[in-house]
C-alpha cells in the first residue's frame, strides 16, 4: 500500500488538496484514510498528483541500435520523466512492419515493467514507402497507430490506398511525419535567418506544410484518423485548424523543444540542437504554444531520439538528427502551459492516451482508477546534467528548468522516486 499525503490531486471534478491511497494496481481511496501498517507514506508537500504521462513519440532504438538506447534504459528515462506509457516508433533495425516484431517489442518492454510501452507499426513494408505493411497482423498484435516516422509516405496514391484499407480497422490511426523529401532536400536547419547567415542548406516550412495539407485532404476523403506528428510551423497549425472546422478527424502533437526554443538558439551550431523538424522561427514557436493551450494541438510528445555523445561530436552538417526529451518534457511543457495543472495532465496524459487508444492511462485520480500516476512539483528549479537515458543529446543540458518530477507510479509500483527530496 502507498499513501500519498498533502497532494494537489487531479480528480474528475477538478483539483483538490487530498490524500491518495494506492493498493495493488488501483487507487483505493481519495481522501483522509488512516494508513495501514507497513504502508509507504509519501508527503507530497503540495505537489501535483495526476495520471502518469503518456508520450506518443519515442525512439527506444531496440532492436538494432541499442548502443544509443534500449528498452531498459528507455524505460528508466521514461519513468524518470513521469511517464507511465509511451508509443515507440517503428524505425528500428529491422523496422517493425509485421505482427511478430510488434509483439516481440511490446513483450520485451512488458518483461522489464517500467511502463506500458506500445509500438507504432510501419505504414509501408520495410519503411520503404512503396507498398502497404501487414496491417492485419500488427492490428491483431495490438498495434493501433501506424507510422513511417522519419519519412512521410512519399506518394499520395499510396497513402490513399493505405487509408482506404485502414478504415475497416476500428481505432486505427495514421501518424505522419510531415516532410516532403523533394522540398526538404539535404537541409540541416530551418530555412530562416540563421541558416542563411551560415550558408547551410536548409529545410523550408513548406516541406512540412505541403504534406500536412495533402494528408488532411486524404483523411477528409477517407474518414481515417490522421495524427500529425511533431507539428512545427504556424502554417501547419492553420491548416489543421481549418480541417478541424470542416470535421476532418485529425489530431496533432508538438515537442517540448519546439515549444521552448526557436532557430535563434542555433547561432552556435550546437549539434545537440539539430533535429527534424528543425527549430523554426519565433512566430512559429508562438503559434505552437497558443495552439497547444487552446487544444488545437492535442498533445505534447517528446520525439525522444537518442544519439551518443560521439555521434553528436561532429560538424553540424554531419550530425544525426534528434534530441532526447523524456526526462525534461514535463518541466518544459508545464512552463509552456503556464504551470496549469488541468491543462498539463490533459495535454501530457489524457489526450495522448486517447489518441493511442490506451485503456489504463490518462485517467483522473478517483477510487478504482488504475494506479498509473505521477507526482510533479511545478515550482522546483533544477538544471539537467545527467540522464537515465544512455544518451545525453538534450537540448536542455545546463539550462535551468522550473518543474520537477518527484515520483512515478506504474501499475501500483514506484518506478521512479528520484525527485522525492
Amino acid at each position, binding site marked *: 500500500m502507498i499513501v500519498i499525503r498533502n497532494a494537489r490531486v487531479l480528480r474528475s471534478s477538478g483539483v483538490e488538496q487530498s490524500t491518495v491511497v494506492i493498493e495493488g494496481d488501483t487507487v483505493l481511496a481519495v481522501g483522509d484514510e488512516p494508513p495501514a501498517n507497513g504502508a509507504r507514506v509519501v508527503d507530497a508537500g503540495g505537489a501535483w498528483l495526476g495520471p502518469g504521462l503518456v508520450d506518443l513519440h519515442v525512439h527506444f532504438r531496440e532492436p538494432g541500435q541499442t548502443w544509443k538506447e534500449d528498452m531498459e534504459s528507455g524505460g528508466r528515462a521514461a519513468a524518470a520523466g513521469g511517464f507511465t506509457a509511451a508509443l515507440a516508433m517503428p524505425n528500428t533495425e529491422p523496422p517493425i512492419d509485421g505482427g511478430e516484431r510488434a509483439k516481440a517489442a511490446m513483450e520485451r518492454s512488458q518483461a522489464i515493467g517500467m511502463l506500458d510501452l506500445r509500438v507504432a507499426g510501419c505504414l509501408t513494408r520495410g519503411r520503404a514507402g512503396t507498398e502497404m505493411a501487414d496491417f492485419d497482423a500488427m492490428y491483431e498484435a495490438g498495434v493501433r497507430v501506424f507510422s513511417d516516422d522519419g519519412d512521410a509516405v512519399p506518394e499520395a496514391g499510396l497513402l490513399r490506398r493505405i487509408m482506404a484499407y485502414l478504415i475497416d480497422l476500428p481505432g486505427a490511426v495514421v501518424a505522419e511525419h510531415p516532410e516532403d523529401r523533394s522540398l526538404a532536400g539535404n537541409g540541416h536547419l530551418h530555412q530562416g*535567418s540563421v541558416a*542563411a*547567415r*551560415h*550558408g*547551410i542548406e536548409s529545410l523550408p516550412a513548406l516541406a512540412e506544410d505541403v504534406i500536412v495539407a495533402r494528408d488532411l485532404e486524404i483523411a477528409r476523403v477517407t474518414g481515417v484518423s490522421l495524427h500529425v506528428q511533431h507539428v512545427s510551423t504556424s502554417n501547419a497549425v492553420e491548416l489543421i485548424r481549418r480541417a478541424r472546422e470542416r470535421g476532418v478527424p485529425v489530431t496533432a502533437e508538438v515537442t517540448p523543444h519546439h515549444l521552448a526554443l526557436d532557430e535563434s538558439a542555433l547561432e552556435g551550431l550546437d549539434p545537440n540542437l539539430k533535429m527534424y523538424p528543425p527549430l523554426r522561427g519565433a512566430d512559429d514557436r508562438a503559434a505552437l504554444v497558443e495552439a497547444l493551450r487552446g487544444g488545437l494541438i492535442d498533445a505534447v510528445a517528446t520525439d525522444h531520439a537518442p544519439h551518443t555523445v560521439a555521434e553528436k561530436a561532429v*560538424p*553540424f*552538417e554531419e550530425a544525426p538528427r534528434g534530441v532526447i526529451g523524456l526526462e525534461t518534457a514535463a518541466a518544459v511543457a508545464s512552463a509552456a502551459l503556464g504551470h496549469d495543472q488541468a491543462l498539463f495532465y490533459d495535454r501530457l496524459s489524457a489526450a495522448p492516451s486517447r489518441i493511442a487508444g490506451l485503456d489504463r492511462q490518462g485517467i483522473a485520480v478517483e477510487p478504482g482508477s488504475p494506479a498509473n500516476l505521477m507526482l510533479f512539483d511545478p515550482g522546483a528549479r533544477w538544471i539537467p546534467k545527467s540522464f537515465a537515458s544512455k544518451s545525453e543529446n538534450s537540448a536542455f543540458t545546463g539550462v535551468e528548468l522550473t518543474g520537477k518530477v518527484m515520483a512515478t507510479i506504474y501499475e501500483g509500483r514506484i518506478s521512479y522516486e528520484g525527485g522525492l527530496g
Partner: protein
Amino acid sequence: MSGLLTLRGMSRESLEALLDSAQDLVSGSLPEGGIHGGATVTTVFFEPSTRTRLSFEKAAHHLGAHVMSFGVGPSSTAKGESFKDTILTLAAMGTDVFVIRHWLADAAELAATWSERPVVNAGVGRREHPTQTLIDALTMRQRFGRLDGLRMAIVGDVSNSRVARGHLAALPTLGVEMTLVGPTPFLLDSDTWGVRTVTDLDAELGDIDVVYLLRIQRERGSSADIPSNQGYARRYGMNQERLSMLKPTSVVMHPGPINRGLEIDDVSADGDRSMILEQVANGVPVRMAVLSRALEGPR
C-alpha cells in the same frame, strides 16, 4: 597567435590593419614579424582547389615556414578517418597553423577547438572565404585609392557563394555600398542581410564602380535553380555591350575560376577593365599577412 576564422564582427581598424600589412608586402618589405623559420603550416583541403591552396603554400614558403599538405585524394579519409582524427593527427605531427578548406560550414571553428592551434579559414561551406574578401578589398583599394563609398554589385549565384557571404560580412564595415544582382532564386533575403537586392543588372550598370561576377557553381546546384545557362548568360553575363554601359572608371572582378562565355565573355575577362589577374596577384601577399599574424607570438 591568432588565426582567421571569420571577418564578421571585425572592426574597421583591424580589417584595415590586415590590408595595410598586405600592401606593405606588395611594396616589397618583409612581414612585420620577420621570417618564421622552422614553423609548420599545414593546408587541409577537403574540397578541390588549385589557386587558393597554391597561393597559401607559396605565402608560407615566403615566410620561411615548412608546408604540410593534406588533400582528400591521397588521404586516409578514404579509409574512413574522421575529420576530427585527421586534425588531431596533423596537430600531433607538429602543425603550428592550419589552413582549412571544407564543405562544412563549421569546419574551421571545430578544427581550432579540437587542435588548439590557430586556424586560417580558406573557405568553408557556403559561409565565408575571408582571404578572398581581403584580396578583393585590397585590389579595389589599390585601384580606387579608397574603399569608402565605392559601389559594388555582386552578380550571380549569391545564395550558394561563400565568397559573397564573406564580402557581406566585412566590406560594408569598410564602407563599400553593396547590391546583390541575379535571378530571385540566386539572391539572399534583403532584410536578413540588410543589403539591397535587384534582378535587373542593366539598370545598375551606369551606377556602380565594381561589377563582381560570381561563377555559376554547377557542383553546388546553381544549375538546378535556373532553366538554362544560356538564358542566364543573356540576362546577367558580362559582355561588350554591358561593358559599354559602365562608367569609364568602373572595373570588372571575378574570384575565379571563370566560365568563359557564361558569366563573362573574353572581352570582359581580358580587357583593361578586368582586375582578375590583379586579384590573383594579391593572393600571396594577403595570405602572407594572414599567416604571419597567425605565426606571431609563442609557439
